[in-house]
């Protein structure tokens, strides 16, 4: 039971926990933006933790796993950003209790 072995278990376990929490969040959150918040932030962190844990289990995989992590960091936030803007454009997706809407205000300034 070396230190890296325990650390790898802790990292993969934490990653799985974050991914699980994200799944519960998508199911339980009330509107599209909250669901997206749960579905993006937690999966980004969860998959990075999981990948780094895997990398400790199998050090020879580490470069490939690092590439995957970089790709997730580049794509996951950007795609959810684009999806959130698209949802924002659709008035029917707007939650009733939305009080501060900076995107709407900045649109007004541009025009």
């Amino acid at each position, binding site marked *: 039971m070396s230190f890296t072995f325990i650390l790898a278990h802790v990292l993969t376990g934490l990653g799985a926990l974050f991914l699980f929490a994200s799944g519960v969040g998508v199911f339980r959150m009330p509107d599209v933006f909250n669901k997206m918040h749960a579905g993006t932030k937690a999966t980004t962190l969860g998959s990075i933790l999981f990948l780094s844990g895997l990398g400790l289990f199998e050090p020879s995989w580490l470069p490939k796993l690092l590439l995957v992590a970089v790709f997730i960091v*580049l*794509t996951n936030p*950007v795609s959810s*950003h*684009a999806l959130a*803007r698209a949802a924002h454009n659709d008035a029917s997706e707007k939650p009733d209790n939305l009080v501060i809407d900076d995107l709407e205000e900045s649109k007004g300034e541009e025009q």
Partner: protein
Amino acid sequence: MIRTIVGLAIVLILMAILITVVDDYTVPSALSGVGESYTETGVEDTGSVNLVTAVVVAYRGLDTLGEVVVLFSASTAVVLILTLIPIGSGPTPPSSIVSFTAGILPSAIILFGIYIITHGHLSPGGGFPGGAVVASAFLLVMLGSNTVPGKSKFLSSIESLAGLTFGLLGFWGMFAAGQFLNNLVLPAGSPGRIISAGIIPLISLAIGAKVASELSGIFSSYRKAGGEK
């Protein structure tokens, strides 16, 4: 209340079915029938280390040709419907985050897609997934720009050329070896090398080009159906 009860009943029934299925199941200790012969003679027959590709492209190549036809008719239907019914009101301008990402990522995605296509006979992958990856790079470029793509002869020529290549390779096998889509009209080479496995890499290339151009055509016809801003 009724919904909950019905839902619970469905879950219980499914659980009962699952338990009966799992109860009878014993893990087979050896392969049987056609699986056994594929694993025993597959590498020898086709030269492909990846037996899934050997089955998909060589043993069941005709089915794959059928799948390509299915995809072709599906994409034709999508394009037809989208040209008949305009949707939306022009493209929404991309935010700076999206257009920046669309500037740096597509080259890496296309490289990865080409890797998947050309290594179909060596590692998991092949024409269909690789073509989809390449098409996603095209989609990203389109999302990062604010323009509507014009009429493109290039995409449809690539698509037709790829389909034609697949068919001609099939006929080559028929005339040279007496069997439609015979894999070994080209030498099998040494298994595990990138240039090996007969015509499997060529067919992977054709399928990849066809899938990529068809999916790209679907994406661009969606954007065209949105109209000009």
